[in-house]
Each structure stands twice: as C-alpha cells, then as structure tokens.
C-alpha cells in the first residue's frame, strides 16, 4: 500500500469521526471567535491601531485555538489504545504522524476561514485586497504550528496534565512561527514591499520543513512504549 493511500485512509477516519461529533471544530471555532471579540473589547482599536493590532490578534487567537484541537486529536486514539493498533500496521509509523498532521491542519484552516472575515469585520480592516498573500502566510504558519503541536500532542496524550502540558511545550518552540507570522501579516496588510515580507516567509518555510521532517522521523520513538 502506498504512503499516500495510507495517509488518505488515516485522514478519512479522522474526518469521519469529526464530522460525526464536530467536537474539535466546534470548540476551536467558538473559542477563536470569543478570543477575537475579547481582544476587540480589550483594545477598542481605532482604525489606525487596528491595522497594527490585527496581526497579533489573529496569530494569538490561532495559537490558543490550535491547542484545543491538538490536545483532542490523539485522545480518540488513546481510549481503546487505537494508537497501539495503528503501530501494528505494516507501514512506517511516521505516516501516522503525517495523517494526524493533515487532519489537524484541516481543522485549523477551517477555523481560519471563519475567523478571518470575522476579524476583518470586528477590527474594521479590509483584507480582501491581500487575501492571496495572507492565505499563503497563514498556511505556512499553520503547518508550523500543527507540525510541532501534533508531535507534542502525541507525547502528552498519556499524561494526566495534557491540556496544561501541550501549550507549555508548544508555545516556546512555536514562537518563531508566531513572530514570523505576525511580522509577515503586518507587512502584507500595511502594503510593504515583498522584500520586507520575504524574510519572515523564508523562516516559516524553513521551520515547516524542519519540523515536518523531524516529526515524521521521530514519531515512532515518541509513541513507543
């Protein structure tokens, strides 16, 4: 069976389970919207400030919301030791990581699709003119967040304090993603030249490549008993 077919099956299972329960997506979306509203009330930004604050609001909201989804993503594998069952299959355990990464990424992207227009309305910042570049930066940042988060989620799933442990582990390591994401988003929204935005984008690409590869390679040891 090809690696692609394995990942497709793993993704099919996760999506089917999520479609039936909508546990992860609902929690992440509601939480993201609430944080966005709270930010708006807390800062009450003027139109000038909104442009400066929106990138931070966006990425902090996504970082918080992603931990909700990530902390749940391996819970459904834990209850009946299904992660153990997955390790019995005759394929590289790294593919389990790839499947989980993709399902976590889809959940985060779905939240972003709902959050972005909501933030634009709340903060009064027009985003449509920059949507292509913004989508690219969001995609790169989201891959970085879930690449690290999926790995830490697998590590913390069997601990009693996983909801606490995951953000404690994730946020320090994902700091480059958040900083680059905020700076790149600000550069795009402010209409700065592409040369100003590029260093942040490059860092996001490098982060994604490193952590996706590392996650794939070490996943076997992370989930081993």
């Amino acid at each position, binding site marked *: *069976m090809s690696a692609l*077919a*394995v990942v497709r099956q793993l993704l099919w299972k996760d999506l089917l*389970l999520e479609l039936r329960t909508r546990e992860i997506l609902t929690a992440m979306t509601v939480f993201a919207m609430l944080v966005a509203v709270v930010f708006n009330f807390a800062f009450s930004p003027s139109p000038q400030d909104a442009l400066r604050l929106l990138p931070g609001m966006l990425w902090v909201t996504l970082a918080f919301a992603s931990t909700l989804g990530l902390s749940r993503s391996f819970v459904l594998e834990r209850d009946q030791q299904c992660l*153990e069952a997955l*390790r*019995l299959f*005759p394929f590289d355990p790294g593919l389990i990581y790839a499947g989980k990464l993709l399902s976590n990424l889809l959940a985060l992207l779905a939240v972003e699709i709902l959050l972005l227009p909501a933030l634009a309305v709340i903060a009064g910042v027009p985003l449509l003119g920059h949507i292509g570049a913004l989508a690219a930066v969001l995609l790169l940042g989201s891959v970085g967040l879930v690449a690290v988060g999926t790995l830490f989620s697998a590590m913390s799933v069997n601990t009693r304090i996983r909801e606490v442990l995951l953000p404690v582990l994730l946020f320090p390591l994902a700091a480059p993603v958040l900083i680059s994401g905020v700076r790149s988003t600000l550069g795009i929204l402010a209409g700065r030249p592409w040369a100003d935005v590029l260093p942040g984008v490059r860092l996001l690409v490098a982060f994604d490549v490193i952590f996706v590869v590392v996650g794939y390679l070490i996943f076997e040891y992370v989930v081993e008993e």
Partner: protein
Amino acid sequence: MQALAVRDITKSFGPVRALRGVTLTVARGEALAIFGPNGAGKTTLLKIASTLMRPSSGQVLLFGADPSQAPHLRRLIGMVSHHSYLYPGLTGLENLLFTARLYGCSDAEARAEAMLAAVGLAGRGGDLVRTYSRGMTQRLSIARALVHDPQILLLDEPYTGLDRSSAAAFTELLMAMRGSRTIVLTTHSIEQGVALSDRVAILVDGVVAYEAGNGAGDVRTIERVYAECVGVPA
C-alpha cells in the same frame, strides 16, 4: 519451520524486570497456550512478539526474519489485546474496512463483511461501536484481528467479556484455523487453553516455569503443575 521465535528476551520497566530471559518457539501451524498469574509478563511478551514493544535484550523472529528490520512482516500478525483497538465513533463495518484497507487487502469490503458474519455481527455492522455491548465489542475486536487473514494470531485473554455462546463460537473459529494458522494465546482458563493448543507454557515472574506438549498431560495435570509453579494449592 518456526513461525515465531523469541530468544532470551528480557524486558525491564525501570527497576521492575517483567521478563527475564524468555525463550519460546512456535512452529508454523502450531498453537501455544501461555498461562500465568497476573503480572507474570504474558501481555509484555505478546507485545514484544507483535513488535509493539522493544525488548531490553533478546531477539524476536517472524518466519526467521527480524521484524524490526522488516516492518512489512507485521502484516503476518493479527492481535487481540486487552483493549478493543476499535473506534467507538465508527460503525463495526467502518472499523473493519479501515483495518482491512490499511493492511492492503484488495477485497477489503468482502473481507470486512465476511468477518462480521463470522463473529455473528452481520446485522449490526452499520451501528456505531459505542452502541455495542462488551461481548459484541470483543467479537468485533476478534474480527478486526482476523480481517487481513494473518498467519500468526496473538490473542491476549481473548475470552474476556464473551458470554458462553460467544466463547463457544470463538473456540469454533479458532479450531477451524488450527493447523493453518500459528496461534499464541494467553488465558487464565487452563481448560480452554489446553483444548485449543498443541503446547502449553506457564510463565511466572517473567520466566518460563514450564513448557510441554499437550501430550504431557490432561487439564488436571496442567492445573496441578500450574499450582506448583505459581505456588498455590491446586
């Protein structure tokens, strides 16, 4: 030919030595029943044999090859564990399809439906597993272990949760496989173990305390030997 060989296996969890130099071989088509009290190391041994756990030292061979160097050999194994390995949010049929597809079965749908029928769940295949009783879940778990037609069956107390008729049906299923499949079974029921196996082994404190063919004795004899090994009255 040896289907499964574990050689001088040790496994430690910190200061606890769960297995201390276990050596067992099971020939192709042979059935081995492993008895032992709780904590004897039966589950650890099956996990190591299935490649789920690395031994601290020693070697596992499947048909003469090291499965840690050849992951495709895991396709030869079907395992029933203490846990069902089933997703409660999927239907019985979806669970089996998922398993069969990931094992690369070309006729996944047919295999899944055949296994549902074999464990008496054909009428409930479309229901979510979370609506199943304990016994039904165990039957589906057995179907899951068999759906890819494995050569080696590792069964860790598979009768747990089965009522009398389900246990009889499972015994019948295993009997039909005897000779064509290699079976390693752990159980607390010496009667069931002896009936299903060609050889028996008794594991106590991580050591094989007794090993013999079933010709070495009837259920009473094995019960007496077990009592001696474990140190309790028969």
